[in-house]
């Protein structure tokens, strides 16, 4: 089985988010980037397929050279080879188009993407990808087994779980549950040493369409000062007259 894990390079959740150039650009200054958590669950599941079923695992990221540390980490965790599509990702359609091109060339059986990236939360890539490739698609995937060319996936649905089967080739949108947080791997020294020698191939983007463009970002209102009240009556009064919520 040949697996491609799509990895998105996203700011760490503790990063301070700021915008520049009149609130049109994300300010990367001082921001730590990590593997998108949903993708990390997928990567870890892919490592399981590698160890238990001898799968080959490649990773692909659309991004400029600044995404390479994140990719190198994925290689240190155990992926065999990386493909970087040398373009700054603009929107979900653009990313999916780039990935689709790489996937067609690589003849993959299973494409593991994250349900969404925690930066822009678009949630479009895996769906569009399946559409462009004409592959089966299972989203919000919280469990995955493969036997022969049949996958059995568990999906999270409102109030319960759904078990589905699908033929390979398949695209999944994965999330926590594929593996648990405690299963996530910290790259060990041996992995880091091996990652030095693994191929990280850079390919140029294909002329893709930009379907949407960011115009402006707005941050939520900063939290106001805390007001301590002396009594419950005063609190109720303030909630009524000042906050106007009751």
């Amino acid at each position, binding site marked *: 089985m040949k697996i491609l894990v799509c990895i998105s390079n996203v700011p760490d959740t503790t990063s301070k988010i700021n915008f520049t150039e009149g609130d049109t650009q994300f300010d990367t200054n001082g921001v730590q980037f990590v593997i998108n958590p949903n993708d990390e669950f997928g990567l870890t599941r892919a490592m399981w397929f590698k160890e238990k079923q001898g799968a080959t695992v490649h990773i692909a990221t659309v991004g400029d050279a600044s995404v390479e540390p994140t990719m190198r980490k994925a290689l240190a965790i155990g992926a065999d080879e990386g493909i970087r599509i040398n373009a700054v990702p603009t929107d979900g359609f653009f990313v999916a188009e780039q990935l689709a091109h790489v996937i067609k060339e690589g003849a993959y059986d299973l494409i593991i993407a994250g349900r969404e990236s925690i930066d822009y939360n678009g949630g479009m890539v895996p769906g569009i990808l399946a559409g462009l490739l004409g592959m089966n698609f299972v989203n919000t995937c919280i469990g995955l087994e493969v036997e022969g060319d049949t996958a059995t996936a568990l999906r999270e649905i409102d109030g319960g779980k759904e078990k589905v089967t699908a033929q390979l080739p398949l695209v999944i949108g994965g999330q926590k549950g594929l593996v648990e947080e405690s299963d996530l791997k910290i790259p060990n020294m041996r992995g*880091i*040493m091996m990652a030095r020698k693994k191929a990280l191939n850079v390919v140029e983007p294909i002329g893709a369409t930009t379907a949407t463009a960011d115009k402006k970002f707005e941050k939520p209102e900063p939290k106001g000062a805390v007001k301590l009240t002396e009594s419950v009556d005063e609190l109720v009064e303030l909630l009524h007259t000042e906050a106007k919520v009751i």
Partner: protein
Amino acid sequence: MRPDLFEAPDYYNIDDLLSEEHKLVRDAARQWVKRDVSPIIEEYAQKAEFPKQIIKGLSDIGAFGPYIPEEYGGAGLDQISYGLIMQEIERGDSGIRSTASVQSSLVMYPIFAYGTEAQKKKYLPKLASGELMGCFGLTEPNHGSNPGGMETKYKDMGDHFLLNGAKLWISNAPFADIAVVWAKNEEGRIHGLILERGMEGFSTPETHNKWSLRASATGELIFDNVKVPKENLLPNKSGLGAPLGCLDSARYGISWGAIGAAMDCYDTALRYAKERIQFGKPIAAFQLQQKKLAEMITEITKAQLLALRLGQLKNEGKASSAQISMAKRNNVEMALKIAREARQVLGGMGITGEYSIMRHMMNLESVITYEGTHDIHLLITGADITGIPAFS
């Protein structure tokens, strides 16, 4: 202990000066400390026990001989990576970092630098994997700052050496499988010998009731007519310079390690100061607390730059012993002062095991003494700049 919410400060974007691999190595160590050290360390420090279950993890993150070449089981990393690993481990606990320092710089390094090919092949891969743990015996009951005066000695008996004497304050001694021991031959010249646990006449009683480095095991090495095979002598360097060469490497690691402890104290104090409300405001709003916090981050930033530059010099093989002394002395004192100030920021909470600060503070009392005391390092700088040694 509370959940570990550590966020590393990097006020001068020093990360930009590190390579991709440096950051990968450091972040792996950082993640591991958060996952495997922070949740258990307080309990082990309280019960004064070394958590042996983390040995495998220490090896996995490359804490044992990171700069030893790959052919001997090391990771073949540079000196900055070594420093960063020490920083992250000591962010968790100085005692755990001590174990890693001893294994890397005081056991693997002398075998690598002064040992025979057979000794390197026999010991280094197992030390790198943690299958064997080592200790380093230099200090004696009557000779601490003045190790040249050591009394431990060995006699050439023809087919073996006969070793007699005692070492005190030896980290890892109670559980170490091997010991690199410094002793004088019949001519009074210092040589290194590799001892193995189980040799007749060799015992390692534990030193109890420490208030510092409680999660690190410390003990004595006692040699009562120990027969040491001749092939266990480290042949390629002798004299006081041999053990001091190991100390250079360990002290360099400590100059980074101390930054880790300081960062943890600062980060804890900063978070606490922003959350703790007194007189209707977060205590971080008061100038006196801001002064403490601002001075802490200033000192941490200076220490980071000092360590990084020293790492570059070490990578180029140009760092002098005196330069290493300066960094060890400066950075450990910096960390100890920050721990004391940070403890006050937390008020009463600062003395409990709920937070790491008091443990760091007590640990650093050892760190400022071992590997050359604070005073001795000052005398080394003094001797270096004046050309007049003032030790004796």
